[in-house]
C-alpha cells in the first residue's frame, strides 16, 4: 500500500512539473506583457489624469459615473449591441454558407476563392478607409449611382454624412472585413466532420438542409462556439474599421466603445477616463464570457 501511495505521489509530481513546463512560457510572457500593463491601466481609471506627469487627482468611481451619464457613451454601447446582433444574424451565417460552398470538396477555383474571401480581413485599415470612402462618395460613389439609376434624377446621397445612414454603411464594411475570419474557422471545423456520417445520412434520403443541421453543425460545434465567442468579443472591441470610416462621426452617431475611448479619452488627454471606459468594455466581456462558458461551452475533456 505504501508502495502505491509513493507511486501515486511521484506521478503527481511529474504531472505537476509537466503542467508547469507546458504552461510556463506562455504564462510568463502573457503575464509580463499583457496582465501587468492591463492592471496598471485599470489603476489609471480611478484618476483624472492627462497622461503626463504623476497620478495625483484621485476620482474614485467618478469616471465611471461620468461615462454612464454621457449620452454619447450610451450611443456607443447601443451601437456595439447592434453590431453584435447584426453580426450574429447576418455575418456568421453567411460565413458558414461560404465555408460550405468552398471549404470542402475542391473544385476549380475553390482555393483561390478562399483566398479572395479572406483578403478583406488582411487589408490594412488605412486602405480600407479610403477605398470604402470612394465607394460611398456622395458625388461619384455606388449609393449615388444606384439612387440616380432608380430615380432617374441627378440626386446625390451622402451615406457617411447622414446621421441615420452612416451606421449601416459602416456595418457593411465590418461585415465585409471580418467575414473571412469566421470563414476560416468554419473551414477548419468542417475538416473534422466525419464523411461516413454524412454519406450515411444522404443514403438514408436526408435532404441537404437536414444533413447540414443534423450532421455537419453538431460535428463542428466547437468551431461554431469559438466563432460566436470571437464575434461577440470582437464586436465589443471593434475599432479599426469604424475609426477609418469617420472616427465615430458624423456627430458621434457611429461611435463604438473603443472609438469613444479614443475620442473622449486619448484625444482629450483624459487617460484616466479612457481607462475607465476600457474597464467597462472589459467587464461587459467578462460577464459575457462567464455566461458563455457556463451555459454554452461543453465542459472539459470528452
Amino acid at each position, binding site marked *: 500500500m505504501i508502495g502505491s501511495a509513493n507511486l501515486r505521489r511521484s506521478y503527481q509530481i511529474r504531472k505537476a512539473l509537466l503542467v508547469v513546463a507546458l504552461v510556463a512560457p506562455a504564462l510568463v510572457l502573457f503575464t509580463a506583457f499583457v496582465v501587468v500593463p492591463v492592471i496598471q491601466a485599470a489603476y489609471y481609471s480611478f484618476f483624472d489624469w492627462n497622461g503626463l*506627469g504623476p497620478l495625483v487627482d484621485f476620482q474614485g468611481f467618478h469616471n465611471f459615473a461620468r461615462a454612464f451619464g454621457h449620452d454619447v457613451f450610451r450611443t456607443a454601447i447601443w451601437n456595439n449591441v447592434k453590431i453584435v446582433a447584426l453580426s450574429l444574424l447576418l455575418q456568421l451565417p453567411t460565413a458558414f454558407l461560404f465555408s460550405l460552398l468552398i471549404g470542402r470538396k475542391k473544385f476549380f477555383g475553390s482555393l483561390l476563392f478562399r483566398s479572395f474571401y479572406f483578403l478583406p480581413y488582411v487589408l490594412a485599415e488605412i486602405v480600407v478607409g479610403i477605398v470604402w470612402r470612394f465607394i460611398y462618395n456622395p458625388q461619384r460613389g455606388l449609393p449615388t449611382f444606384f439612387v440616380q439609376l432608380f430615380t432617374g434624377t441627378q440626386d446625390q446621397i451622402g451615406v457617411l454624412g447622414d446621421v441615420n445612414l452612416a451606421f449601416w454603411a459602416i456595418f457593411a464594411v465590418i461585415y465585409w472585413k471580418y467575414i473571412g475570419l469566421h470563414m476560416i474557422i468554419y473551414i477548419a471545423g468542417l475538416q473534422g466532420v466525419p464523411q461516413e456520417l454524412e454519406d450515411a445520412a444522404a443514403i438514408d434520403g436526408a435532404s441537404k438542409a437536414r444533413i447540414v443541421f443534423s450532421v455537419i453543425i453538431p460535428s463542428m460545434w466547437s468551431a461554431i462556439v469559438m466563432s460566436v465567442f470571437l464575434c461577440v468579443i470582437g464586436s465589443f472591441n471593434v475599432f479599426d474599421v469604424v475609426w477609418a470610416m469617420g472616427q465615430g462621426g458624423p456627430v458621434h452617431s457611429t461611435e463604438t466603445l473603443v472609438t469613444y475611448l479614443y475620442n473622449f479619452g486619448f484625444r482629450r488627454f483624459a487617460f484616466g477616463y479612457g481607462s475607465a471606459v476600457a474597464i467597462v468594455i472589459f467587464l461587459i466581456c467578462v460577464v459575457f464570457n462567464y455566461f458563455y462558458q457556463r451555459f454554452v461551452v461543453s465542459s472539459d475533456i470528452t
Partner: protein
Amino acid sequence: MKRLSIRLLLLAAAMLIATTAFATAPVEETGGSDEVSFSWWALSGGGGSPNPRETMRQAIIADFEADNPGVTVELQMWENEAFKQKVQIDVQAGNPPDLFHSWGGGVMVEYAQAGGLRDITDTVENVLSQTIGMGPLGVYGNAGHYYGAPYDMGAVGMWYNKDIFDEVGVSVPQTWPQLLDVVEQIGNAGYVPIALGGGDRWPAHFWWTYLATRIGGQPAFNAAYSGAGSFADQPFVEAGEALLDLLALNPFQEGYLGATYDDEAALVGDGVAAMELMGQWAPAVQQADSASGNGIGDSLGWFAFPSVPGGAGSRGDVMGGGNGYVVGANAPDAAVDFLVYFLQPKYAPAIIEAEGIVPVVSNVDWDFDANALAIMDAVANADYYQLYYDQFLPPAVGEAVKDAVVALLAGQATPEECAQMLQDAWEMEQ
C-alpha cells in the same frame, strides 16, 4: 490535486513578482562623451523617400554639422497622428525627443507643464526676436516662457475660384451679408458654393471661430479665456446664428458631414466648388488631390474672411497657425543652437520650396505669388492674431469646440448649446 494546484499558484505568483520587479528596475544611462548628438523629429512629406523635405533637412543638417564638429543630428520623420502618439508616450516616459515638431498652443502647454519641454526664453527673447515677430513667437510660449519657435505662420482665409466668380458674375465679398449673397448666386448657377470637410471637423470649426472672431473680436475671446467672461456669451452665440444663416442657403456639397479635408480640397482643385475656408497649405493640397494634378492654377485667388457688420472685431484680425519646433527637456544646447540655425532667413527659400510654408522670418529672398503675399500681409498687419481654437485651447476643449460646431451644423445643437458646450469643456479644464 491540492499539492498540484498550490505549486501552480506559487509558481505563477513567483513569476508575477519576478516580472514586476524586473520591470521597475531603473534603466542604466551611460555617461556623456565629447560627442554630442540629439534627435530631431519632423513631419513626413509624403511621396516616399527621399522626398524634398528630407533632402532639404539633411542639407541643413550637413551645414550645421560642418559648422559644429562633434555634433550629430539624428533626423526622424513621422506621419502626423503617429507622431502625436509617439511624442505623447515618450514625454510621459520621461524621454522626450530633443527637437520636435509642434503646432504650439494647448498641447504644447500640457507638455511644458508636465516638464517635457526645455525653457528657451533667453534664446527666444534675445536671439530669435531679431528676425521673427513676437506675435508668431508667442504661439510657442505661455505665461512669459518660451519653448520653441515657428518657421511657418500663416492665415486661414477664403480660397476662391476666380473663373467661377466671373462666370456667375459676382465679386469678392467684403462683408458677411455679401458673402451670403455670393453663395446663393453660385448655388443657383449649379456649382457647389463652398467645399467643406465636415467629417474631419476641424475645417468646419474654422467657420465658427472666424465668425466669433469677427463678431466678438479679441475682447470677447480674452474675456472668455481669462474667466471674466464666458464662451457662452453673446458673441459666440451670434457666431452660431450667423453660421446657421449660411447653412440655410445649402452652401456645402452633398454629404459634407462625412467628407474629409482631402474631399474638400479635391472639389476645389477640380473646379467643382467655388470656395473653401482654409489655411496657407490649401493650394498644394488642391493640386495633389485634383484629377489633373494641377488644381485650378492661376484661377485660384484668396481673400480675407469677410467682416460682420456691427461686430467688435475687424477684418484685419487673423486666425491662423503654422508649424514650428519645440525643444525637449533633456536636449543638449546643440539642439537649441540648431533651432536658431534652422531659422536663419537664408534657409527660408529651401524650406518654402520643400514645404510650401509662409515664412515668419523677415527679409526672405523668394518670389512669392499673389496669394502668398496677401497672406503674409494679413499676418504681418494683424492686430489680433489668433491661433486656431482647436490648437490654442487645451486638447479637451479643442475637441469640444470641433464637436460643438459639427453638432450645430447637423442640427443637433442650437447656437446657445453650441457655445455652452465649449464653455462647459473650458470650465472642466480650469
